[in-house]
């Protein structure tokens, strides 16, 4: 068997419970070499648990998983030699300096002392941390800490890298830096599995996405394949202030394939057929009804829409909130309606608290 024939990561029927709570409920995954594989789901979907099982930190109750052909339970040592893990919160010694952390983790990753120092220096330069290398990590900002944490995961040259919500809690600029690094790593041949609850993040980074909910995969494919599942286009119309709301709804309804939702500021949203001319038809109908339009936009379904279509969460609620809350496609918009903590339970101090 050659390396290319074995998937980088494969999981079959993984089950993991924490007391009564089922975190993984028959999870299947298959990640090819060199992919950026996105695991997308709300808090509590089982993303963190999945990563912890694949990274040998948790033992599944049933099912099995292999990373680079090695079983995560029976050959955990072999797996650990070849993976890197960056969790939701920085796994660093806050009292030590950035450089000391990297050297320590390098030594524990089986590098020689000279090699650990050399790699540490290189990674500090590459992640723009050279100036802060001699400072204790507790003085770092959230973004710096994340970068150092990622550097720590890379010091042992992992072939497979797990990133558990790598940008949660980061400001947009730090997030963009993180995205660049992730793309760079993939270009260099590292296989990446990243979990995220940011739809646009999965959309922009991942070549393959698994949508998980309730501890199992509910859809899988490329971002475009998933979007195709959500079907029709979405229109959003904002009538000028003082317009006749009922007339506006009637005009949009005439061309919509489903109910028209009225959101904040009188904004109307609805699904419309994905065909040319739908926008002009809508504008004409609104004009005939005497509605002046402040803005109108028709767009392809986003991954938010896919998610809502697949899980049913929030969709049935109808008028207003879910569709209005999700779907604008802004950077970093979270899935609407999920605020609970992830099942795996470790509290995640989120990046921002720089000292």
């Amino acid at each position, binding site marked *: 068997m050659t390396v290319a024939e074995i998937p980088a990561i494969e999981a079959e029927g993984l089950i993991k419970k924490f007391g009564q709570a089922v975190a993984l409920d028959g999870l299947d995954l298959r990640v090819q070499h060199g992919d950026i594989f996105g695991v997308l789901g709300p808090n509590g979907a089982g993303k963190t648990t999945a990563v912890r099982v694949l990274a040998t930190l948790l033992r599944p109750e049933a099912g099995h998983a292999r990373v680079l052909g090695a079983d995560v339970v029976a050959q955990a040592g072999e797996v650990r030699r070849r993976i890197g893990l960056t969790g939701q919160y920085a796994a660093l010694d806050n009292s030590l300096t950035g450089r000391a952390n990297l050297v320590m983790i390098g030594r524990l990753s089986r590098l020689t002392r000279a090699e650990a120092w050399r790699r540490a220096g290189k990674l500090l330069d590459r992640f723009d941390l050279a100036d802060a290398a001699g400072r204790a990590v507790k003085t770092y900002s959230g973004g710096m800490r994340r970068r150092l944490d990622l550097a*720590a995961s890379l010091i042992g040259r992992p072939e497979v890298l797990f990133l558990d919500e790598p940008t949660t809690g980061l400001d947009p600029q730090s997030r963009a830096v993180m995205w660049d690094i992730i793309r760079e790593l993939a270009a260099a041949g590292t296989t990446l599995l990243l979990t995220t609850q940011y739809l646009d993040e999965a959309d922009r980074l991942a070549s393959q996405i698994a949508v998980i909910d309730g501890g199992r995969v509910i859809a899988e494919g490329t971002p475009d394949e998933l979007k195709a599942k959500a079907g029709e286009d979405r229109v959003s119309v904002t009538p000028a202030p003082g317009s006749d709301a009922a007339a506006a709804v009637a005009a949009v309804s005439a061309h919509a394939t489903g109910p028209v939702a009225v959101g904040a500021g009188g904004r109307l949203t609805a699904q419309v057929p994905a065909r040319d001319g739908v926008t002009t038809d809508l504008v004409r109908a609104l004009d005939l009804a005497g509605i002046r339009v402040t803005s109108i936009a028709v767009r392809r379904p986003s991954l938010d829409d896919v998610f809502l279509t697949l899980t049913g969460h929030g969709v049935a609620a109808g008028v207003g909130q879910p569709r209005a809350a999700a779907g604008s496609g802004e950077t970093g918009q979270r899935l609407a309606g999920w605020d609970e903590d992830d099942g795996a339970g470790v509290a995640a101090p989120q990046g921002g608290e720089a000292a």
Partner: protein
Amino acid sequence: MTSATFPQAPARPRRWRALRWAVTDSLVLTWRSLARIVREPETLMDVTVQPVMFVLLFAFVFGGAIGLPGGGSYHEYLIGGMFGMGVAGSAPGTAVALVADMSEGIIDRFRSLPMSRAAVLIGRTGSDLLTQLIGALVIAVTGLAIGWQIHNGLGDALAGFGLALLFGYAFSWAGVCLGMVLRSVEAAQQLGFILFLPLTFISNAFVPTQGMPGWLQVVANWNPFSAVAAACRRLFGNPDPSALVHAWPMQHPELAVLGWSAVLLAVFAPLAVHLYARKSR
């Protein structure tokens, strides 16, 4: 490059290599703990400020009221007692540090690395041994300042230091176990104090056991801290009222220290590793 595609190396070199890596990992983590101390020296207070405070309190506040059966200087008597307490006094700190490690992300990092599992614990106790050595030296210097002296040869004195440090090392594994079963740093701090103080005080460390109620004398005479104190006093040539006590550990304190240390290590070291392994799953 995987073991799945190539025949496995013979078992013996593999095992040796694993042992070598375990030693390296333990040394790296010992270095980590020491580097932390260098950056945060206030964590050394439990083996520096605390013993000095106890020596001064007992020498000058309580000492005048304590008479020694068989006579002799209380100041000289006190230092041997302080050795056991001062050296083992790092154990509650060990529990606190491990609880903190366990509740922070760093332990997940260690678990995802191809490193030896026991190294986290061995590294910690290794650095404890060095802080205990610092503690012993601080007590010795404080002792010299208040009139303590070594009356036997240097060899005997070093044996006293060695016994105290051996006991301290063994005792820090009890601290490791405490750190493995507790969940919060606050609990570790409080429980460490609550357990440690009576354990050291119900002994001959500060007062001769002869004045205690009968049943408490039995407890105190068999307390390992009494054995450490008596052994140090004998080896330093300081007043040792426990020589008049007929309990076996007081007649053979050096052997008792060796025995207690062996028992502590045999019980708490495997238990600590077991608790740590169980926590990872």
